[in-house]
């Protein structure tokens, strides 16, 4: 698949940054569960946090393929930093670009795209996961404001974000058409961040709960129109799933890189383990599936760049790349043997980080449901 010189240059630059700045912190933040503020600040300076938004809104004006490449290369060394970037761009910022008023874009998108702020997107609730339309959070109009009540859980970057997009029911009984999206700033009375989750992987990414208790926001903070919330998050997920696909792709590639290196170093029975056909076949399968993932991810990104609806392709690329990442990281530990099970080698981290890509932004089952629905309607 041919990339443009621009996309090649993005890969080269982000790869260098990833190896020199992101990777040296990856193991540490995995162990300490610390949010890598320094790295995120540098990503902002490089323009990664607003990579695909127009320059007039503080972005770099690159395409979705470049964005996918950036997420891939960061995730290739650190899944935590990868998801922080992906969630910020696709979930925290993109909906404002796509549905915000000019004023909202000036006020929120510009600092987000410049990386001065981090954004988050609160959709999931204790009783509304795969069934995101089952939102129980409510927003009641009161004069010039809306008053929000409810709880969002598992929200990426919730405790570090300056602004959070949240969905809430504005009209009961109207189903998906009764849901609206709102922009809530950190520090708004009634907005608080609850439990910081303890997770299997992605320890360097923040995943927290958000609580709205009579949280009053000005009516100007309605994103899109009233009742448009469902459409807004479906749209955000179409884009976001490409970035989770890219994240999965990067993790898988990182695991393969580690295996190629290790299998040439490790000797057993007087030979490099790379000389055993059993290991060679695993590596061949890993590489082939990664190549397929890459094609699917870039293909979806390209369609998005052409302005096409990508619901089907986004679901396919996230499904395939996510499951590939899980298969590849499982084999990666196998190739490393007992050493792979230990924290001294990065593959156990890749394995733990990969699992999210089969769950976040819609589980693999939900992706299959979306794909089938697109084909059978």
């Amino acid at each position, binding site marked *: 698949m041919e990339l443009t*010189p*621009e996309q090649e*240059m*993005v890969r080269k630059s982000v790869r260098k940054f990833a190896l020199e700045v992101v990777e040296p912190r990856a193991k540490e933040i995995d162990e300490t569960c610390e949010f890598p503020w320094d790295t995120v600040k540098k990503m902002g300076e*490089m*323009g990664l946090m607003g*990579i695909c938004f127009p320059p007039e809104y503080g972005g770099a*004006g690159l395409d979705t393929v470049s964005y996918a490449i950036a997420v891939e290369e960061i995730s290739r060394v650190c899944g935590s930093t990868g998801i922080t970037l992906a969630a910020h761009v696709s979930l925290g910022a993109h909906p404002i670009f796509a549905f915000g008023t000019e004023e909202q874009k000036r006020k929120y998108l510009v600092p987000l795209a410049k990386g001065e702020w981090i954004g988050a997107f609160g959709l999931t609730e204790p009783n509304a996961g795969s069934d995101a339309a089952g939102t129980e959070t409510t927003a009641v109009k009161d004069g010039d404001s809306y008053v929000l009540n409810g709880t969002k859980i598992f929200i990426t970057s919730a405790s570090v974000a300056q602004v959070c997009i949240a969905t809430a029911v504005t009209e009961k009984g109207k189903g998906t058409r009764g849901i609206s999206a709102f922009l809530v700033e950190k520090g708004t009375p009634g907005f608080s961040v609850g439990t910081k989750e303890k997770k299997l992987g992605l320890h360097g990414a923040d995943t927290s709960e958000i609580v709205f208790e009579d949280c009053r926001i000005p009516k100007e903070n309605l994103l899109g129109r009233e009742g448009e919330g469902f459409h807004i998050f479906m749209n955000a997920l179409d884009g976001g799933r490409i970035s989770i696909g890219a994240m999965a792709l990067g993790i898988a590639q990182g695991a393969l890189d580690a295996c190629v290196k290790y299998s040439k170093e490790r000797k057993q029975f007087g030979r490099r383990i790379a000389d055993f056909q059993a290991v060679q076949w695993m590596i061949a399968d890993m590489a082939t599936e990664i190549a397929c993932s890459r094609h699917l991810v870039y293909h979806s990104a390209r369609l998005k760049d052409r302005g096409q609806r990508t619901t089907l392709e986004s679901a396919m690329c996230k499904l395939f790349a996510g499951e590939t990442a899980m298969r590849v990281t499982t084999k990666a530990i196998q190739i490393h043997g007992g050493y792979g099970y230990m924290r001294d080698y990065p593959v156990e981290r890749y394995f733990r980080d990969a699992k999210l890509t089969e769950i976040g932004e819609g589980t693999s089952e939900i992706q299959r449901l979306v794909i089938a629905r697109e084909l059978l309607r």
Partner: protein
Amino acid sequence: MRIIVPIKQVPNTNDVKIDPKTGTLIREGVDSIVNPEDLNAIEAALELRERLGGEVIALSMGPPQAADALKEVVAMGADEAYLLTDRALAGADTLATAYCLSRAITKLGDFDLIVCGRQAIDGDTAQVGPQMAEFLKVPQVTYACKLDVVEDSVVVERHLEDGFETVKARMPALVTVMREANRPRYPSMAGIRRACTEDVVHRWVATDFDAEPWRIGFDGSPTWVKRTFTPPPKAPGKRLEGTPRDVAKDLLKTFTEKNLL
């Protein structure tokens, strides 16, 4: 401030292997990169521009693909780039290279500062910077690990083998910087877009910068490479063991034997 930064595209010698039979570099499949210390030069220039205003112009001589190196430094923030590319320039040694670069700089007009990397990782000569200063008749300060502009002068901390030296030179001047000078920034995403979508690399042939034909390319290069070889590995050092007294004694004896004392 008008700052000119000459840069060179070089093979990434980290990846280069030496053919054991011929003793020459195997360049196939090796990435081309911007010479590392030239990135320090760009960074130094960009920092000065950020503080004092002005422009940073990158300049390179090389084959057409050296445009990639110039695009990279534009993506880092250089304002403009010039590539001297012409078959007539091929085969240049350091003298012919420095001649061409200084002719091009003259053609570009007035400047305040030229910042170069100390040396290129493929040749390791460290000659081109100083030679350019001679051609342009401006003061030169080499091996900078820190530089600053104070009024009409550049103040440079030089890193020497046995210490530091602070030198002040009236501008226009030429400074060569070392790796220790700074940490080069990464190309920014907006910079990449600019480097790839706008016409940022101006290409010049020899006549565009009024080069005298006898001083360029192969004919203008008095250096002849007689032979290249890999030096034999150094003999391993000798380890002296025992009590400090014995070791000191042995050491003195060895020094005396070798006429070092």
